[in-house]
């Protein structure tokens, strides 16, 4: 008797044992991106630019040509690549430190130029790889290793809402915020990621998907508690939704 395969690993994903922590959102997000690439049939012409942060090793998971960027510079590398080879589909995958702190200039200007690339921006409100420091997206009151009593607005200011910021730029064609904390959000996230890639393929401009993700390890929570925290705390400050949709002809 032969068994029918109902669910398989996307072709774009390699059978790599994960280095991400239990409950981390990166694995789900990787899979969603890989599924979209498979479904669009673009694996052989897609290039990914890895960030600095937990996802620096993402080329171990994606069966794609890849660059590994310096911290915050992925949009510039993607720009250089896309300008040379406009037929490629180029995307950056960046964390909150990468996209909203050290690489803010690059993030703003890649959108302002309307560069025909896509950014998957993973916001988990903390620095993961360096083990739990404050991020530009850390919520006021949230405890990290560099704000042990909770982020103080007085001394550390306020978390940055990148989607809202990027959506103000004319060159940004598609900007949306999603989450991966439960199956309903995961299904929605995949649709949005697909739309972002389609925006690029149609040449409509820059597309960015902010994914609210959970970091149980550095939040000092169980995976279940962390998904609840995304929904109860993060979504209050970072509402889900589409902030900019392409003006299609």
């Amino acid at each position, binding site marked *: 008797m032969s068994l029918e395969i109902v669910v398989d690993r996307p072709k774009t994903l390699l059978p790599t044992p994960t280095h991400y922590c239990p409950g981390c959102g990166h694995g789900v997000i990787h899979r969603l991106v890989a599924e979209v690439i498979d479904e669009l049939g673009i694996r052989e012409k897609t290039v990914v630019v890895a960030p600095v942060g937990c996802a620096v090793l993402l080329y171990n998971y994606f*069966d794609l040509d890849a660059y590994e960027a*310096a911290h915050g510079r992925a949009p*510039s590398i993607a*720009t*250089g690549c896309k300008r040379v080879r406009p037929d490629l589909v180029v995307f950056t995958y960046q964390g909150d430190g990468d996209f909203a702190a050290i690489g803010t200039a690059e993030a703003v*200007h890649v959108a302002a130029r309307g560069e025909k690339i896509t950014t998957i921006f993973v916001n988990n409100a903390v620095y993961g790889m360096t083990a739990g420091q404050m991020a530009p997206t850390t919520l006021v009151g949230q405890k990290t290793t560099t704000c042990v009593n909770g982020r103080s607005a007085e001394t550390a200011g306020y978390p940055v809402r990148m989607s809202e910021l990027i959506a103000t730029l004319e060159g940004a064609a598609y900007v949306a915020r999603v989450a991966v904390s439960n199956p309903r959000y995961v299904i929605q996230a995949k649709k949005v990621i697909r739309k972002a890639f389609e925006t690029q393929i149609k040449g409509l401009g820059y597309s960015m998907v902010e994914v609210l993700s959970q970091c149980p390890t550095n939040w000092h929570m169980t995976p279940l508690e962390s998904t609840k925290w995304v929904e109860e705390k993060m979504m209050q400050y970072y509402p889900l939704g589409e902030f900019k949709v392409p003006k299609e002809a």
Partner: protein
Amino acid sequence: MAKKEFMSGNDAIAEAAIQAGCRFYFGYPITPQNEIGERMSWRLPQVGGGFIQAESEVSAIYMVMGAAGAGARVMTSSSSPGISLMQEGISYIAAAELPCVIVNMMRGGPGLGGIQPSQSDYFQATKGGGHGDYHLLVLAPSTAQEAVNLTMFAFDLADKYRNPVMILGDGNIGQMMEPVEFKPPEKQIATEKDWVVAGAKNRPRRIIKTLYLNPVILEKRNLEIARKLDGAVKNEIRFESYMTDDAEIIIAAYGTVARIAKTAIKILREEGIKVGLLRPISLYPFPSQAFAEAAGKVKNILVVEMSLGQMLQDVKLATCGRTNVHFYGRVGGLVPSFDEIVAQVQKIVKGGKTA
């Protein structure tokens, strides 16, 4: 024969790059090299290339990295403070072994400094500049024509060694207008770019990376890059010897200062003082052997720079105490005049010491 055109060094470099096959330029305006980016902005679209005025030098150098990784001939240009901003990316490009050409039209520093010519980024250019063990290949033109020739050659050199090549000029080389002729190198070095990122179609994926968490592998990577550069040290040394055959004193200078030294040498020879010039054209690799040989023949070498003594250290290393090494330098954007150099040589002849 191609007809000569009257151009600034900056314009000439931009045109030479295009004729050498450069198709992408990413940069940020800074004086005194703006003519390069300005010309690139309208010339590159004419030849099917691309230009971006980036939001910063930091971003520009990563656009260079992206374009180089995608297989294009690509360049950027800047001046001292802007080159400092690019050092992070230059280190990554060297680590990833990607070819590109970087022009630095040096201006007076440190800090914001000034906008007049200087040679005070010699250390930064020749010793690495950014973090980690690596070197740029550094070429220093002394005329607009040489800037043209070296720029064209720089792209071949970058491809051959898969290493960033720097054209190290100064504000004077960039701004001065001279007649130039564009003659692309007769044979371009054919290099197969089997590392280019272009989509993993019918082949395993390619990764352009610089992170090696395993120290054993990272040491191996460092040694591979070092061995590669050893090849450049053996094969890519360039210098000019000017009236050194009978010289009793040798002046060491590069770029703008070398031109001024030639005027000083003519005057000194009329006075009967036998002076010659050793002019490094490649600053890395440095023509150490030429200086070692000179040290065996003359008792005095005078190093003249628009710095407080940077190339001086390489001359001292090469001559290893076997001759007197004197130094004269002007900084801040001031250029040593030929009569200042004449006076320094006269002092040495009289038995004085200048450094």
